[in-house]
């Protein structure tokens, strides 16, 4: 494990009694390697390592822990700090229905998450309706309708009308039925597909969503930064959802996306069933990334 790896590398620290530039160097190289292997973006790793170096240098080496453990503690604490707070809530608007837009790359888990979010919000006392705004993917509407039916959540669909028109009609229907929340499932798209990104911008300006959630696959590698940055630039999304965290990926994308966008990670999806979602815990995420 990481602590054992570092203990070997920085035995020299014991002699000086203080963590200094030289003896920390080796330890930090080990941490850098571990973070890259965990899929943290290399630029984020660089900045993270210098922040840790600054915090660690000059720290007294206490007798109760090994130098390796001490450096790891600084790393762990800094990681937790960077990953952000737990339980940042969804934003709702004063006038119902609140609109929540679910966006992200192809296959990241948006449709599944939309249903999960609906179930969560209903549990917390809200009255949500799902909106099938992916008019492109074969059987995408059917997929959301099936998921909604499975947990008794209403799903609004209007065939393959333009997504803005579907959503405007959904708002009308929500007002009629007294639904206070609309969760809009959108088609997966590439951040470099200008027409598709423009479609999302159009949805945003037509619906004034109180919340835009960027859904990212937890096993994403270095590309996590490029796509998240592009979605942020064009949509200024409010929160991040990481999916497929029930796998064995280290999840470095969590740190990358959080560090580069500054937006809070709000939910962790950890399974295929509609109850497999939990609020974000920075401590758990930090331990996972460090491996």
């Amino acid at each position, binding site marked *: 494990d990481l602590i054992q790896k570092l203990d070997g590398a920085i035995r020299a620290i014991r002699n000086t009694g203080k963590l200094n530039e030289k003896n920390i160097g080796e330890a930090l190289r080990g941490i850098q390697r571990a973070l890259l292997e965990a899929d943290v973006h290399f630029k984020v790793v660089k900045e993270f390592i210098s922040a840790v170096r600054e915090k660690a240098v000059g720290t007294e080496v206490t007798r109760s822990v090994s130098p390796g453990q001490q450096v790891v503690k600084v790393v762990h604490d800094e990681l937790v700090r960077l990953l952000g707070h737990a339980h940042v809530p969804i934003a709702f608007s004063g006038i119902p229905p609140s609109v929540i837009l679910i966006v992200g*790359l*192809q296959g990241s888990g948006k449709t599944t998450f939309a249903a999960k979010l609906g179930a969560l919000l209903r549990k917390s006392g809200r009255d949500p309706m799902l909106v099938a705004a992916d008019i492109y993917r074969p*059987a995408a509407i059917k997929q959301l309708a099936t998921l909604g039916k*499975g947990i008794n959540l209403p799903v609004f669909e209007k065939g393959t009308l333009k997504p803005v028109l579907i959503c405007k009609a959904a708002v009308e229907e929500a007002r009629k039925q007294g639904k206070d929340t609309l969760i809009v499932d959108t088609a997966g798209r590439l951040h470099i597909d200008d027409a598709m990104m423009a479609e999302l911008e159009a949805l945003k300006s037509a619906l004034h969503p109180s919340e835009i959630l960027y859904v990212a696959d937890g096993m994403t590698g270095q590309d996590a930064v490029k796509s998240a940055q592009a979605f942020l630039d064009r949509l200024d999304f409010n929160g991040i959802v990481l999916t497929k965290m029930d796998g064995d990926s280290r999840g470095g994308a969590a740190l990358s996306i959080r560090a580069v966008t500054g937006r809070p990670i709000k939910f962790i999806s950890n399974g295929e069933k509609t109850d497999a979602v939990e609020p974000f815990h920075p401590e758990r995420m930090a331990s996972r990334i460090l491996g």
Partner: protein
Amino acid sequence: LHSKPKLDEELLEELEEILIQSDIGAANALSLIGEMRGRLPADGDLEEASRRILMERIRQLVGEGETGGGMTVTADPHVILVVGVNGTGKTTSIGKLAYRFGRENRKVLLAAADTFRAAAVEQLGEWAVRAKADLIRQSMGADPASVAHDAVEAAMTRGFNVVLVDTAGRLHSKVNLMEELKKIHRVIGRRMPGAPHEVLLVLDATTGQNGLNQARVFQQAVGVTGIILAKLDGTARGGIVVSIRRELGIPVKWVGLGEGLEDLVPFDPGSYVESIFG
């Protein structure tokens, strides 16, 4: 006497970043650059030489011994099992393969063996229509091995040339799901000895180092014969395929370049490497 030609720090860093950004992995990046430095000519344009040597080495690593990507149909029916973790592009890739085989005048049968996920069968059904292929399906919740069995059976008796078996996305870390996949594989082989003739692992090009674990576990479970690297039309480069080729010997056979019927091409090592350094 040998004196190693000096590459400046800035160039080395730039090259290392190109490699790491493509998800080739930190350890690979380091060893590739180390190797490259040992092969630099004594003089000349070092910047050009370093790039060329790196590109050539990576091209060699992913394309060694290949006569080209894609694959040859070797049996009749030729049975292809498509596997991978959730959301990578299996169903869509099957639609694309069905279309390609159809254009080669082969009779194609699709097996809807994802009997778990919402609207999975409907999704494949739509692709069958687009690709003009036939479809074998059962009800949702049916035993996927049974669907696969029926499809191979149908292909053998009704003269299909290619069978493409779609399976549910599954995380390699889920033992029970991997057992289910092994059963699908076994049942296919029992109905037609030698089948499946191909087991294609669909990998999302945005996947990081976890892709190696995926390949390893799927390889152990059902023996992967090739990779479909999907979503390469994005900015991700799927560099994990270098490790997969190096450590597991699994070659990339196809590349997904979009969401339409024609967006699948045989893997070409040369253009792949160009796209990393491009």
